[in-house]
C-alpha cells in the first residue's frame, strides 16, 4: 500500500464518527430508494406477469341482457382479439350467527373449457362441475376473512331466490385483486366476496339461459381502446349496455394503480431530500478535513504530487463513505422492501408475490450515493488544490472578525461575551450555519411531511364518513324503486328517517374527452348527507346545472361555466347539454351532482330511487339488518361505522410502517448534521474553549458555548423546517392523490409538536455526546499548541 492510501485509512479511522454519520444519512437515502423503487418494481412486475398469464381484460362492459352469441359480433370489431360473455349477479349472503350485511358478486365460469379472459387461478379444491347446481369457487380473501374452506356451505339469495351454495374451491382472478362492493370505497373481505359459479347453474338461477349481462374483451396489441369502446357501446346499446370501459376505470385495477403511483411518488420525493443533505454533509466534512490538512497538501504539492493525485486521494475518502452507505442502504432497503412486500401481500391478491431484486435499482441507488459523495468531495477539493504550495505550508491566517449588522445588533442587545462569541462565529461563517440549520430544517420538514400524512388521511375519511354522511345504513335496491319502497323502509321498527338515493348512470362528454359515471341527486334539505369540500366546509348545491368534483372536472378538462353533454346510460339513452355550475374540491373521487330538478331534466322522467339512506335506533340494529336482508327488493345493506373503521384500519396499517421508517430516517439526518457540525465546531474552537476554562470558566459553562451555537441554529431551523414541511407535505399529498381519493393537506397541530420534539431530542442527544468531549479537554496540551 502506498503512503497516501495508508494516510487515507488512518484519516477514515480518525474521523470514523463523522464518516459513519454521513454514511448513515446517505444510506437512509439509498435505503428509501431501494425500498420504494424495489417494492414498486416488484409489484408492477408481479402484476404485469399475473395480468398476462391470466388474460386480464382490456375492456369491460355491462348490459341488461343480450343473447350469448352477441360475443361473435363483438369479436368482429376491429382491434378485438378475444371476447367472452358471462353473467354477473350481486347476491346477498346469509351466514348463521352473523348480523351484518353480507354480499357477494357471483360470476359465471364456463363448465367445459377454461376461461380465456380473467382466468381463475385455483388455489385449493376444484372448479364447479357442470352438473352440480350449487357449486362455487370462493375468492381467497373472502374465504380467509370468513374462515371458509372447500366443503363449507353458504346460504345466498340470488336473483330473489334462496340457494345453498357449496364451496368446492378457493381461487383468485386478476379482475379481483381488490374486491369492492358497489358503492363502497374500501375492500371489506368479511362482508363482500367474489364467488365463481358454473355458467349453466348461474344462468338458471338468474333466468338468463343463453343470455349474458357482461362482456370482457382482450384487445389486439396495437388496438386503441377508445375506438373499440365506442363501437362496443353502439353494439350493446339495444341490450341495455351501461357503457363499456377500459382498465383504468376497472375498480380493482384502479386501486392497485393508485397504490403503485403512491409508491412511485415516494421514490421521487423522499430520496432526493436525503441526497441533498448527504451531499452537503460530505462537502462539509471534507471541506473541514482539507482545511486542517493545508500544510500536508502543501507538502504533497511541494514533493510533486499533481492536483489530480491529491484530488483523487480525497475523492477516495468520499468513495469509501459512498460504498459504506451503499452497502448499508441496499441491505436495509432490501430488508424493509421484503417486509413491505409482505405487508402488501395481505392486501393484494396475487397468485405469487415475490420481492424481486432488480439490478437496475441497485445500480441507480449506488450511483446516487457515489454521485452525492463525489460531488461533495469535488467541491471541497477544488478549493484545496487551488492554493500554491507555499501558501499551503504557511499557517492559515487567523480568522478576521468584523462587525456586520447582526453583530452590532448583538452588541446593542448587551449579550455576554459568550453570547457574542456565538453570534460572531455564526455571522463569520454564514454558509456553515445555513448548512447546519438547513440540514436540520430539511429533516424536520421531511418528518413533518410524512407524519402529517396520517392526519390528512384521517381528515379525509372523517370528512367523508362523519361530516358528509349522517346515515347509519345505506340500502341498495335490486332495481330503481318508487316512493312506496321508501315508505316500506320507514315502516320498519327502529327506523327514524329514510332519504332516497337517486343516482343516474351517464356518460359525460366535453370536446373529445368523455367519462362514465353517475350523477347523484343532492338537496340542501337532506339531513343524512351533505357535500363537504376538502377544507371541511359545507358546499351549497347549485339550483341549476351540474356540480362536478375537481377530479372529474380535470378528467374532462372543464371548468365552471362549461357546457357538457350528458348521455343517459339506461332508459331512454337521451343526450342533453348542461352547464357546469360549480367545480368543488372533494376528498373522494370523481363525482357529479345535481339538484333533483336538473336530474329530472336529464332523465325526462320520474326519478326513482336506486337506494336509501337510513338513520336507525342502534338498539334495534341487528333486527333491522335481518329484516332488510329478507326484503326481496333489497340488494344490499352497508353500514357507515363498519366502512369507517375499515378505512381507518387500512390507513393505519399502511402508514404506520412507513411512518416508523421515516421517523427513524429523519432522526438519522438530524443526528448526522448536528453531530458533524458539533465535531467541526469543537475541533475548531478547542483552543478558545480551553482558554475559557483556564480563565476560570466551569466546564459546563464552556460546553454551553459550544452547545449554545448549535442550539441557536437548531432553534432557527425549526420555523424554517415547518415551512419546508408544509411545502413538502402539500407536494406529497398532491402526489399521493389518485383518481379515487384527493387527500387534503390537513395536518393536526400536534404533528408540528411531535416533529419538533423528535428533532430536538435527536439534536440534544447528539449535542450531549459532543459536549462530553469538552469535559475531557486537555487544557495544557491545547494551550501549548500555537493557534
Amino acid at each position, binding site marked *: 500500500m502506498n503512503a497516501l492510501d495508508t494516510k487515507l485509512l488512518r484519516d477514515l479511522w480518525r474521523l470514523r464518527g463523522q464518516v459513519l454519520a454521513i454514511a448513515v444519512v446517505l444510506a437512509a437515502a439509498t435505503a428509501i430508494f431501494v425500498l420504494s423503487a424495489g417494492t414498486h418494481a416488484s409489484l408492477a412486475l408481479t402484476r404485469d406477469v399475473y395480468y398476462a398469464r391470466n388474460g386480464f381484460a382490456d375492456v369491460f362492459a355491462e348490459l341488461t341482457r343480450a343473447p350469448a352469441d352477441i360475443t361473435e359480433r363483438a369479436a368482429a370489431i376491429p382491434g378485438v382479439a378475444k371476447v367472452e360473455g358471462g353473467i354477473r349477479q350481486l347476491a346477498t349472503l346469509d351466514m348463521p350467527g352473523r348480523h351484518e350485511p353480507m354480499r357477494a358478486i357471483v360470476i359465471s365460469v364456463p363448465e367445459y373449457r377454461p376461461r380465456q379472459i380473467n382466468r381463475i387461478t385455483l388455489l385449493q379444491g376444484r372448479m364447479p362441475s357442470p352438473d352440480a347446481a350449487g357449486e362455487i369457487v370462493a375468492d381467497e380473501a373472502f374465504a380467509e376473512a370468513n374462515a371458509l374452506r372447500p366443503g363449507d356451505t353458504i346460504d345466498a339469495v340470488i336473483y330473489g331466490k334462496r340457494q345453498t351454495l357449496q364451496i368446492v374451491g378457493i381461487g383468485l382472478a386478476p379482475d379481483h385483486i381488490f374486491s369492492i362492493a358497489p358503492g363502497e370505497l374500501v375492500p371489506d373481505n368479511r362482508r363482500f366476496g367474489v364467488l365463481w359459479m358454473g355458467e349453466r347453474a348461474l344462468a338458471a338461477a338468474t333466468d338468463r339461459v343463453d343470455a349474458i349481462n357482461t362482456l370482457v374483451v382482450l384487445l389486439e396489441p396495437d388496438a386503441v381502446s377508445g375506438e373499440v369502446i365506442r363501437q362496443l357501446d353502439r353494439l350493446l346499446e339495444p341490450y341495455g349496455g351501461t357503457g363499456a370501459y377500459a382498465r383504468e376505470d376497472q375498480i380493482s385495477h384502479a386501486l392497485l394503480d393508485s397504490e403503485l403511483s403512491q409508491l412511485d411518488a415516494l421514490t421521487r420525493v423522499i430520496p432526493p431530500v436525503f441526497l441533498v443533505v448527504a451531499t452537503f454533509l460530505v462537502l462539509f466534512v471534507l471541506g473541514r478535513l482539507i482545511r486542517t490538512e493545508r500544510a500536508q497538501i502543501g507538502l504533497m504539492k511541494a514533493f510533486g504530487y499533481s492536483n489530480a493525485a491529491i484530488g483523487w486521494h480525497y475523492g477516495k475518502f468520499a468513495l469509501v463513505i459512498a460504498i459504506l452507505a451503499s452497502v448499508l442502504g441496499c441491505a436495509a432497503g432490501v430488508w424493509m422492501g421484503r417486509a413491505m412486500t409482505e405487508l402488501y401481500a395481505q392486501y393484494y391478491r396475487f397468485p405469487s408475490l415475490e420481492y424481486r431484486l432488480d439490478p437496475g435499482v441497485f445500480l441507480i441507488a449506488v450511483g446516487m450515493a457515489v454521485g452525492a459523495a463525489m460531488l461533495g468531495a469535488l467541491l471541497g477539493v477544488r478549493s484545496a488544490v487551488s492554493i500554491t504550495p507555499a501558501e499551503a505550508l504557511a499557517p492559515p491566517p*487567523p480568522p478576521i472578525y468584523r462587525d456586520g449588522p447582526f453583530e452590532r445588533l448583538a452588541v446593542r442587545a448587551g449579550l455576554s461575551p459568550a453570547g*457574542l*462569541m456565538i453570534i460572531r462565529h455564526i455571522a*463569520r461563517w454564514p454558509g456553515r450555519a445555513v448548512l447546519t440549520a438547513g440540514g436540520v430544517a430539511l429533516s424536520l420538514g421531511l418528518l413533518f411531511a410524512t407524519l402529517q400524512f396520517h392526519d390528512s388521511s384521517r381528515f379525509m375519511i372523517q370528512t367523508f364518513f362523519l361530516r358528509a354522511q349522517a346515515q347509519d345504513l345505506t340500502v341498495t335496491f335490486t332495481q330503481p324503486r318508487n316512493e312506496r319502497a321508501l315508505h316500506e323502509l320507514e315502516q320498519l321498527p327502529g327506523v327514524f328517517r329514510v332519504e332516497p338515493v337517486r343516482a343516474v348512470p351517464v356518460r359525460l362528454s366535453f370536446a373529445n374527452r368523455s367519462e362514465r359515471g353517475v350523477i347523484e341527486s343532492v338537496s340542501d334539505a337532506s339531513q343524512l348527507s351533505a357535500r363537504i369540500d376538502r377544507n371541511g366546509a359545507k358546499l351549497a348545491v347549485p339550483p341549476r346545472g351540474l356540480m362536478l368534483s375537481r377530479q372529474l372536472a380535470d378528467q374532462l378538462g372543464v371548468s365552471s361555466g362549461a357546457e357538457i353533454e350528458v348521455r343517459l346510460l339506461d332508459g331512454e339513452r337521451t343526450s342533453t347539454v348542461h352547464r357546469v355550475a360549480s367545480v368543488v374540491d372533494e376528498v373522494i373521487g370523481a363525482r357529479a351532482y345535481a339538484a333533483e330538478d336538473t336530474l329530472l331534466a336529464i332523465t325526462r322522467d320520474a326519478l326513482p330511487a336506486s337506494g336509501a339512506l337510513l338513520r336507525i335506533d342502534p338498539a334495534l340494529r341487528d333486527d333491522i339488518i335481518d329484516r332488510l336482508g329478507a326484503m326481496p327488493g333489497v340488494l344490499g345493506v352497508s353500514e357507515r361505522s363498519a366502512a369507517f373503521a375499515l378505512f381507518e384500519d387500512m390507513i393505519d396499517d399502511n402508514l404506520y410502517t412507513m411512518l416508523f421508517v421515516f421517523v427513524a430516517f429523519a432522526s438519522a439526518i438530524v443526528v448526522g448534521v448536528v453531530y458533524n457540525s458539533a465535531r467541526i465546531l469543537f475541533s475548531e474552537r478547542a483552543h478558545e474553549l480551553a482558554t475559557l476554562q*483556564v*480563565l*476560570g470558566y*466551569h466546564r459546563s459553562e464552556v460546553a454551553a458555548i459550544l452547545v449554545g451555537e448549535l442550539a441557536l441554529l437548531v432553534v432557527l431551523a425549526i420555523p424554517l423546517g415547518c415551512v419546508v414541511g408544509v411545502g413538502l407535505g402539500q407536494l406529497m399529498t398532491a402526489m399521493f392523490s389518485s383518481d379515487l381519493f384527493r387527500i387534503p393537506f390537513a395536518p393536526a397541530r400536534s404533528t408540528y409538536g411531535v416533529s419538533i420534539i423528535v428533532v430536538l431530542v435527536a439534536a440534544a442527544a447528539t449535542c450531549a455526546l459532543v459536549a462530553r468531549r469538552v469535559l475531557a479537554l486537555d487544557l495544557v496540551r491545547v494551550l*501549548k499548541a500555537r493557534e
Partner: protein
Amino acid sequence: MAGPPATPTAAPAFRALGLSKVYRTGETEVHALRGVDLDIAAGEVLVLLGPSGSGKSTLLNIMGGLDRPSSGQLFFGDEELTGLDDGGLTRFRRAHVGFIFQFYNLVPSLTAEENVRLVTDIAERPLEPMAALELVGLAKRAAHYPAQLSGGEQQRVAVARAIAKQPEVLLCDEPTGALDSATGIRVLEALVRINRERGTTLVIITHNSAIAGIADRVLHFLDGRIARIEHNASPIDPAGIVW
C-alpha cells in the same frame, strides 16, 4: 529533598512540599518534577529560568490548577490545592489566578474589551474592563478585534484580561516569547506595575535570562529540580533591561 529550600520574606502565597510529576507516554515515564519544595511570598516577583523540559511549566500549571502533581502537596494560603477536585480547581482559578501565555490565547471573535469582559463577568471584585485596558495603555484599542492588533498589543490585552479580576497571583508562561524586545519590555512594565501597585504575586517563566533582573528571586530549574536560587537585593526596572 532536592534543591535548597526557599526562604519566605512575608506570609507565603504558595507552599509546595515534595511536588513530583510523572508523565507516562506509552512505555516511557518522564519525570517532569522531582520533589520540589518551595515557598512563595505574597507580592513577590519570581522568575523561573531553565532549559526546555526542566519542569518550569509543569510547576506553573500545577500552581495554576491546570494540572495535578503525581505526589506531594501544594498550599495556596491555608487551602490545599492538591486536595481539590476539578470544580474546586476551577473555582480557585476563577477567584485567585490570572494567566498569561506566550501565544496570547485571545478569543478571536471578541474585541479587546470583550476579551477582558470574559473574565470580569465571572470575577467577584473585578476592575472595569476599560480600567484594566487603561492599565496596559490600550484603552483606545478597546473596540478592536485581536486580528486588528499587533502581537504586543494582543499580549497586553492578555495582561489586562489576567489582571482585570484583581487576582492574588499572575502566572506568566513566556509572556514575551513571541515579542520583539521593545514590545516585550512594555508588557513587562505592565506586569511589574500591577505587582507594585496592587501587591500581586508575579511568577514568570522565561528562557530569557535578561528578564531575571526584574525578579526578587530567580529559580534555576534543571531536570525537574530547583538547581539554584538567586536573590536580587535590588530588582531593576524593566526599562533597564536590554536583550
